[in-house]
């Protein structure tokens, strides 16, 4: 696999998996309006992953549906963070915040990529991502600083998410090549911008990032090393597809 394909796969797989996880809240959200908003964003994620799978298809990979529904867990490049089961709504909201801010920044960087098809997709999803981050920031600041219970639950969620979130920035073996060819400015730069973006929001929410001495990025996802939670998700997601791969739906 070359450097561009690897980059595309990790972006698309993150979107596909978190999109599916978040869609599991459909019908179970805390209130109707939030249920609809969260489901709608999950749908956006799947749509965005499809756009990236389409780029991969243009580079010679299989059809988007085939790629999305027929691979096994060890063939996926998503960060482990995105596959973790939904906990309470605090966990999912916190993951949504930590992931979406990174996602928005990544696409912002990629909007200037020398790989023009990816730059084009990145510019196209800008509005969706802006809303996703607006949604996340609003909830985080509201819940973080609302009541003692909401604050405690959000802080617990942040602590639970943190090392997994750091795993999103696992570097690729092609990192230097991507940077020198100006395709992507690299995970280290993204992580730096991400920390800069989430910190003021968390401060406003009166939430504290775990002490740096405890940071232990949960990596491996980019190389196909996943938790036991990913395969059941894939089985469920591809259940209908596998009944009849040629069906139109």
């Amino acid at each position, binding site marked *: 696999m070359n450097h561009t394909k690897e980059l595309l796969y990790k972006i698309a797989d993150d979107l596909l998996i978190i999109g599916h996880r978040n869609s599991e*809240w459909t019908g179970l959200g805390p209130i109707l*309006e939030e249920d609809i908003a969260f489901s709608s964003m999950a749908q956006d994620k799947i749509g965005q992953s499809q756009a990236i799978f389409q780029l991969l298809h243009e580079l010679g990979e299989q059809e988007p549906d085939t790629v999305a529904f027929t691979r096994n867990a060890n063939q996926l490049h998503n960060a482990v963070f995105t596959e973790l089961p939904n906990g309470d709504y605090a966990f999912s909201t916190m993951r949504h915040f930590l992931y979406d801010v990174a996602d928005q920044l990544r696409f912002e960087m990629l909007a200037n990529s020398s790989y023009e098809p990816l730059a084009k997709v990145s510019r196209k999803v800008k509005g969706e991502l802006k809303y996703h981050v607006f949604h996340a920031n*609003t909830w985080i600041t509201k819940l973080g600083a609302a009541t003692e219970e909401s604050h405690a639950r959000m802080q617990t969620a942040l602590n639970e998410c943190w090392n997994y979130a750091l795993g999103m920035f696992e570097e690729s073996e092609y990192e230097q090549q991507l940077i020198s060819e100006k395709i992507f400015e690299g995970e280290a730069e993204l992580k730096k911008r991400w920390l800069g973006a989430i910190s003021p929001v968390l401060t406003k929410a009166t939430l504290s990032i775990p002490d740096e001495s405890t940071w232990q990025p949960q990596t491996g996802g980019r190389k196909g090393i996943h938790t036991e939670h990913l395969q059941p998700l894939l089985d469920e997601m591809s259940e209908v597809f596998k009944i009849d791969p040629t069906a139109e739906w």
Partner: protein
Amino acid sequence: MIKSLDPRVTRDQIELNNQIAPLQELDQWETYEVFHQKKRGDQHMHVGIVHAPNPEMALLFGKEQYGRRGITANIWVVKTANVFASEYEDQDIFETVPEKQYREAGGYKVMEKINKYKKEKKA
């Protein structure tokens, strides 16, 4: 490890013999009226309501509820409590005697059509 809340994975254990607390006032968030504008310059049209704890969240929900299925330029949200309405029992204040029909605003409807036609012709 975090347990999934997906009912297809794990069923939530609801204890049926638990007393369910009666609804309290403010168990529900307040409602906001949502107004939707298709294009810049158009009038904002009332499209419905959302429940929200504050105006910012009302905008957040209003966007998904009413702005995602069609073209949208802008939305407004207004706290329902801030809308002052006339009483239906006073509906008769709007009635008028037949010979004063010249005061009805039917003509405006025609002007809208004329303006629309003029605009189309220009374009």
